[in-house]
């Protein structure tokens, strides 16, 4: 299918709600959602009560701050760059996982917009900040400018200012349009960053080289080993990449994704505008999906025999261990709170390990990914591989809905992917597991690793048990007695 929504001529990429009909509310069964999405009849609805969401600008920041030799400017009031310091910490702490021996301090600037700037415009300030950032960051190889709500509303012409600056200083100055108010699906911020990178950094291919693009966050380097038998290396995008490795992303033999929510747009852009084939089947979580994925990778790399051999070896080695874990975990009920694709991955992993997924709290749903291939739909695979999930809730991190649902379902273990949610497992005395490294549970060995952690988590419940005895709870008794979807405005429930 031709890709609507990919047009690198435009300064800004359309947000997910517009481009691929993503929704942030749904209550019903997973099978119904998959079915309705494919029929094109999932509609988003608003909520008449809402709590703090995430923001596109932080997601765009996470894909740019961690590029080794770049500098990042937040064009807005100083508060819009406040939490970006966290990426400096991330960069430093995870550097050893990626072989970066001497991680350097991240260069993060704010144009520090003030009230007068909202009246007279912040353009001059931005131009000055770009010049200063270039000098002070020791001549970075690219500068990324992230827009914010204030800059967006006052209408600064960020695109032209960046283009002018680029001509002057001679390195790419990439305007990234990621104002928070543009999208309720904060993953739109990833797309915004990738769009800027595809427009300004990635160069047309001159040759094919023996590497595979891996669109991911900052997890451990599992792909290095996996790709070795195929004679290719991973080109990680974008955390820990360099401007140069990004420029050459077009020369890869394929693109793979650790998380389709994350890489949907860039994977499609690389295939459609730069001719790099994308492994379109969903990422390798759970045995069945792992095997489909290796098969597809083998096909795209023209080495199906290698893929078959890899699968065979791994089955032999890991299946007995997985079988043992299944016995230990059989019958346990889990609840999952995560972003879309990673949530689908967790569902596969948990069910492969023999747990019952009692319900989910998934931050959004992409009706399709940018490649429009149903093979990419991991939730679809989850349903057909392991059966339906009756309480499949899509909810953009509205904690009140989470506490309501958790207090009803009382699972044996609560699995979270994002910060701030785990507390509610502990407050209800439910053992809770959050793992930051998204590669941790990939493939066969990932199932073993993750299964062992699950066993430990379920067994070690003394801490949460104790905490729950003294829990602080701001929610009213009334709220716990209401249906979870009380504040959903029609349409999305089924």
């Amino acid at each position: 299918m031709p890709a609507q929504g990919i047009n690198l001529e435009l300064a800004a990429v359309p947000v997910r709600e517009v481009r691929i009909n993503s929704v942030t509310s749904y209550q019903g069964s997973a099978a119904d959602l998959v079915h309705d999405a494919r029929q094109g009849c999932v509609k988003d609805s608003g909520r008449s009560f809402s709590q703090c969401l995430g923001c596109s600008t932080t997601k765009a920041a996470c894909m740019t701050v961690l590029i080794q030799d770049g500098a990042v400017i937040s064009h807005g009031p100083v508060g819009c760059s406040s939490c970006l310091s966290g990426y400096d910490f991330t960069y430093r702490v995870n550097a050893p996982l990626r072989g970066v021996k001497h991680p350097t301090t991240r260069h993060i600037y704010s144009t520090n917009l003030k009230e007068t700037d909202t009246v007279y415009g912040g353009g001059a300030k931005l131009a000055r900040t770009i010049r200063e950032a270039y000098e002070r960051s020791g001549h970075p190889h690219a500068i990324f400018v992230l827009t914010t709500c204030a800059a967006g509303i006052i209408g600064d012409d960020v695109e032209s200012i960046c283009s002018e600056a680029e001509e002057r200083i001679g390195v790419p100055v990439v305007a990234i349009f990621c104002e928070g108010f543009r999208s309720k699906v904060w993953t739109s911020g990833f797309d915004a960053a990738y769009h800027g990178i595809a427009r300004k950094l990635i160069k047309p291919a001159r040759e094919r080289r023996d590497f595979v693009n891996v669109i991911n966050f900052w997890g451990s380097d599992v792909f290095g080993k996996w790709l070795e038998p195929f004679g290719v290396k991973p080109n990680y995008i974008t955390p820990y990449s360099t401007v140069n490795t990004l420029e050459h992303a077009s020369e890869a033999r394929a693109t793979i994704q650790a998380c389709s929510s994350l890489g949907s747009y860039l994977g499609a852009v690389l295939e459609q505008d730069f001719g790099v084939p994308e492994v379109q089947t969903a990422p390798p979580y759970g045995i069945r999906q792992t095997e489909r994925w290796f098969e597809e990778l083998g096909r795209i790399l023209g080495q199906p025999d290698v893929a078959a051999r890899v699968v065979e070896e791994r089955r032999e080695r890991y299946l007995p261990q997985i079988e043992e874990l299944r016995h230990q975990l059989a019958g346990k009920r889990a609840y999952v709170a995560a972003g879309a694709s990673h949530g689908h991955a967790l569902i596969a992993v948990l069910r492969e390990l023999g747990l019952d997924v009692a319900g989910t709290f998934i931050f959004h749903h992409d009706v399709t990914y940018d490649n429009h291939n149903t093979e990419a739909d991991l939730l679809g695979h989850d349903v057909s591989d392991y059966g339906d999930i009756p309480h499949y809730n899509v909810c953009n991190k509205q904690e009140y809905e989470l506490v309501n649902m958790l207090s009803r379902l009382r699972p044996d273990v609560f699995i979270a992917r994002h910060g701030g949610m785990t507390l509610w497992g502990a407050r209800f005395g439910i053992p809770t597991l959050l793992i930051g490294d998204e590669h941790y549970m990939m493939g066969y060995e990932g199932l073993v690793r993750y299964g062992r952690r699950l066993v430990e988590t379920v067994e070690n419940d003394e801490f949460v048990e104790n905490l729950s005895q003294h829990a602080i709870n701001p929610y009213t008794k009334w709220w716990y007695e209401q249906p979870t979807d009380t504040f959903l405005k029609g349409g999305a429930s089924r």
Partner: protein
Amino acid sequence: MSKQEAGVIEQGRYTCAIGALETVAAIPHAMPILHSGPGCGEMQQGFFGNVGGYADVNTTPCTNFTEREVVFGGVDRLRENIANASKVLDSDLQVVLTGCTAGIVGDDVESVVEEFREQGQPIVSVETPGFKSSNFEAHSVVVNAIIDQYVDATANDATVRSERACVNLFASIPMQDPLWKGNLREYKRLLEGIGLKVHVLFGMESAGVAEWRQIPQANFNVLVSPWYGLPIVRHLEQLYGQPFVQFPHVPIGANEAEAFLRSVLDAAQDNDAGLDLDAAEHFITCERASYYEALDTLAVFLLEFRYGLPVFAHIIHDAGYVVGMSRFLLHETGIVPTEQFVVDGTPKRFQGAIRADLAATSDKRTIPLTFEPDAGHVQDLIRDITHEGRGLVIGSGWDRELAREKGYDFLSAAVPSPYRLNLTTNYVGFTGGLRLIEDVYNGVLATYR
């Protein structure tokens, strides 16, 4: 050599006005409600760390402006959100804070909030668009809004200043001072030690909203700050005729704790608080004796440790800490404060007094002081400075790498501070001075292995 005001900021050490949502979150059983873009809460949470009081950022109601509200205004969404927030969440006080979006499109938030207030709901509205000010300044704006729209509305003129031995304390800004909990607890202990009743207003030492309603009853106010918080005590002076005593820096160690207590005692006498001065004196004597007993034991280490201790320090912090720590280090540990850096965005009009306060630290030496909110630039300045001997940097997590580069010791004592947890630690007072010594020298000793 401060650069142009309101210029670029690298490595921000404070946040914008809506960061004052932490001021609300720090009042037991109070709840912020944001009328803002979706990311404002996330930014504060990431900056201050994942800690947040009764109702943390994930719990905080927010209208999460979309394009639609930007174009058509968001007051209807706000009305709906406030109404439902009080059904879902249990709180004694709600404070609606606005972000840039609401500020620029010009939503009339106050009249929406007024509708709820008229029905008897304890609710306050305050404008905190990020472009208006920093959270250092917005802290006062939020406190004053609560006083005007909630406290004063229920105040009884007859009881104003009715408690002679009672004070309201305005000191550490919640979260912006990473040690705010411990510090407020110590301030309270010290002031109670000299016979005062204290409205500490924030943290678990406070009785929450009920205590806020007692603000008018206090006889006078105590402000510990070189500049932030000043609008609060001035406002209370105007509103209730409460005088205030200002101690201009964070009182760390025995000298400063005693100076702080004496300045409050003087104010108590001026305001006829009726304190038992002998008992107050006895309290100070005991505190001092116990402090010097510990310092005397430590002196052997300070004087005899043969393998190297820091001899000079750069502090990168807010003005209150820079002056307070400089005084403490010089007089109570022997570490010389060399070039110092205030990164809190101190307005120009206060800078002279802060310079004078720092200059009074020593008759013998001048301590160079730079006001510069662009902390990335501050780091470049420090890169170009060299001194003989082993150095110490006290700053935020950002400065750890700088200290490493320079081969200095490092202590994380300012936000953002990802390398340190703070639960009940205080640097204020007699006990705080000893704790700061422990933290500095334990950091030093950890380098010997």
